Structure formats: structure tokens, C-alpha cells
């Protein structure tokens, strides 16, 4: 293995993880906003949601990134590639998380809604005490899934020359041509990150189940 490549790959992995983390945070916030739009009483507002999700989920991430990077100067401003890359990921994960949240809300059985309403709770309390725990239970597995997808999606940004794990691997390969070794190591880094997130998710599910959120998986 070429000298110094392990540390370069590790740095790249950290960058990928940070990109994903920022995208997950931003995407979740965006998704909460989008999900509220999705349940608006106005059909026109709901249509905005549907169009956004349709466009983001129907276009490859690479094309979205190229579109935002090259063709929309307004988004560029004086931002570096990392900020632009994170913005693209946020747009992407926002749509995915929003669908997860929307699915979670829709999965709440009718009786729960009705009993909540019959209790006469104000909307905020209803949200906190009834909607949020149920939505969390239903959405935790797919939410963790989207988190893993985000880490994998960060590799696509390498094509836009955002320096992260995949690009680091490519650069080392171009210098040293140790293709199998370096790609193998890069795959190992990704595996550890994604598998780790998946396991953390299951751990979280189990803890929440114990606290009475009654998760679906044991």
C-alpha cells in the first residue's frame, strides 16, 4: 500500500462523513418544513410539495448537482465546493426525509387521530404527545436508511470535484495505480460508516422500544 494513502483516505472519509452529517441535519429541517406543506389544507400548497418531490426524486443526483453547480449562478455566490455540495445534498435528502415523515404520519391509524381529537388537546400538545412518538416509531428505520443513502450519495459529489473519500481514492490511484488496494480500502471506510449508522439506528430503535415507544422490531 502506497505510503500516506491510508491517512489521505481517512481524511477523505472524515470529509464524507461531515458532508453527510451536515446534509442530514439540513435535510431533516427542510423535510419538516416540506412535510407540513404536504399536509396543508390548500391544494395549491400541497402541489408545491408534490412537484418538489417529483423533480428531486426523478432526477439523478449527479444531474441535480451539475444543474445547481453549473447552471444556477444564484446558488454559487462565493461558496466553496463543500458548501455547494452540502446544499445539493440537502435538497436531495430533504425530499427523501419528507417522504419518510409523510409516510410516517399517514401510517398513524385513524383511531389514534380520533381519540386524540376527542381528548380535546390543543394542536401543539397533540403533536408532542401523540403524533411525534408514533411518527418516530414508524419512521426510524426508513430515516436511518436515508442517512445511509446520504453517506453513499456523497460519493457522487466526487464527480463534481468535491474532495471527499471517493475523489481521494481516485487521486491516489492516478498517482500509484494500486487500484484494487485503494478501492478496497475506500470501500472498507464506506462500509464501516454505513454499517455503523445502521447499527446505531437499530440500537436507538431498541432503546426507544424499551422506553415505551413500542418499536416494531425487537
Amino acid at each position, binding site marked *: 500500500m502506497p505510503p500516506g494513502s491510508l491517512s489521505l483516505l481517512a481524511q477523505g472519509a472524515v470529509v464524507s462523513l461531515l458532508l453527510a452529517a451536515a446534509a442530514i441535519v439540513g435535510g431533516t429541517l427542510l423535510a419538516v418544513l416540506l412535510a407540513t406543506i404536504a399536509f396543508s389544507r390548500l391544494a395549491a400548497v400541497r402541489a408545491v410539495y408534490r412537484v418538489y418531490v417529483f423533480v428531486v426524486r*426523478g432526477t439523478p443526483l449527479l*444531474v441535480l448537482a451539475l444543474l445547481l453547480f*453549473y447552471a444556477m449562478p444564484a446558488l454559487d455566490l462565493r461558496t466553496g465546493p463543500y458548501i455547494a455540495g452540502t446544499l445539493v445534498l440537502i435538497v436531495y435528502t430533504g425530499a427523501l426525509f419528507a417522504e419518510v415523515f409523510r409516510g410516517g404520519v399517514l401510517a398513524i391509524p385513524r383511531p389514534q387521530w380520533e381519540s386524540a381529537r376527542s381528548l380535546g388537546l390543543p394542536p401543539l400538545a397533540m403533536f408532542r404527545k401523540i403524533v411525534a412518538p408514533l411518527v418516530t416509531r414508524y419512521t426510524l428505520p426508513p430515516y436511518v436508511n436515508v442517512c*445511509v443513502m446520504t453517506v453513499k450519495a456523497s460519493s457522487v459529489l466526487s464527480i463534481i470535484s468535491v474532495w471527499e473519500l471517493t475523489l481521494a481514492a481516485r487521486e491516489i490511484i492516478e498517482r500509484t495505480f494500486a487500484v484494487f488496494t485503494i478501492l478496497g480500502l475506500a470501500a472498507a471506510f*464506506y462500509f464501516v460508516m454505513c454499517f455503523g449508522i445502521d447499527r446505531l439506528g437499530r440500537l436507538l430503535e431498541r432503546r426507544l422500544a424499551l422506553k415505551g415507544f413500542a418499536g416494531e422490531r425487537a
Partner: protein
Amino acid sequence: MNFARWVAIYGPTYLTGLGWTAVTAVSAAGGALIWGCALLLIRLSAGRWGARGVDAYVQLFRNTPVLLPIYLIYFAFPMIGMPWPAVVCGGLALILQNGAYISEILRGSVNAIDRVQFDAARSIGLAPWSTFRKVVLPQVLVYSIPALGNQTVLLLKDTSLLSAISITELTMQAKLLTEQTGAAYEAFIVVAVLYLLLVSGTEVLFRVTHRAVRWG
């Protein structure tokens, strides 16, 4: 130059890209389905080690981005004496990746088949392969159509990554046009619209198939 004129002039050049995207997507989807069924068969019939092997395979491809196998097969295989053409390399990477996901989809559907059917099949003396072919597979496939449709859309979007190994599909076409004309906005908007059309078309296709098969 305004948008409409640009599209009128450069529109037809997208046809090559569209062709390649469609060809790679369809063949990779077909290959991934076959590979996914094969993985399912291994899981069901090769005992504990078979199941564990398939599990390891699935975990590997679920936790690594698809760009890595694409680069590996394209750039490294010539080194070990297998310089396959770019489409084969890209297609193979997509098949390996999506086959893993498809085998998981099918596995979920298998659990939905009533256990009784397996006993019934055994009692009339059906061999395992026949059971698989005549009892399990048809039901599993029909049951999985919506999820398979979803996976096909993901595969279709992943074909855009093949632009990195010099396949002139839609995304590569847009890049070439950007270089040639400087009109990045027009080039990529058209490509985005084309992908949306392809994705919608695929979804409609699967929905129609699902309905037809359910009533057939």
C-alpha cells in the same frame, strides 16, 4: 440564445444519450432481476452457509456506493486481463449492486407466501428447483412488482454515473453540450426533463403491469 431555439437546434443530439441510457438501464435491470433471483435461490436452497453468504454479499453492496464497483471493474479489470467494453463494465457494476437490493425485496415477498404452499408442494413430490420455479418465483415476482418498480427507477438514475467511464449516455451528453455551447443551463434542464420523463414512464409501466397481472 433563447431556450426554445437552443432546444430546437441541439435537441436531436440528445437522442444518442437517450438511447444509451435506455439500453444500459433495460439490460442492467433485466440482469439485476435474474441475478437477484439467483441470489434468492442460493439463500433458500444452500442452507445456513448459503444464506450467510448472500447476507454478506447484500451487506457489502448496501453499504458501499455504486461508483466504487464501477471504477473498479472499468479501470482494474483490464489489469487482470479482462478489458471488457465500458458498457459491460458499467452494466455489470449496476447488476451486482441492484441484484443485492432485488434479492432483499424478493426475500421479503417470500415471507409473505403462505407456508402451507411449501408443504403442499412437497407432498405432491415437487423437487426443490420445480418448487422454486413454479410456486415461489411467480408469486414472489408478482407480489414484488411495486418494489421492483422502485428499484428500477433507482437503477435508471444510477446510469448517470456511467458518464464517469466515458459512456455517452444522457449526463455525458449534457456535459459535452455544455463544453461545446457554453449553455450549461439549457443543457442540463433538458437532461433533467428527459430523466423525469423516463422515470415517470417507468413508474407508469410498472403500475400498469401490476394491475394487469393482478387481474390476469
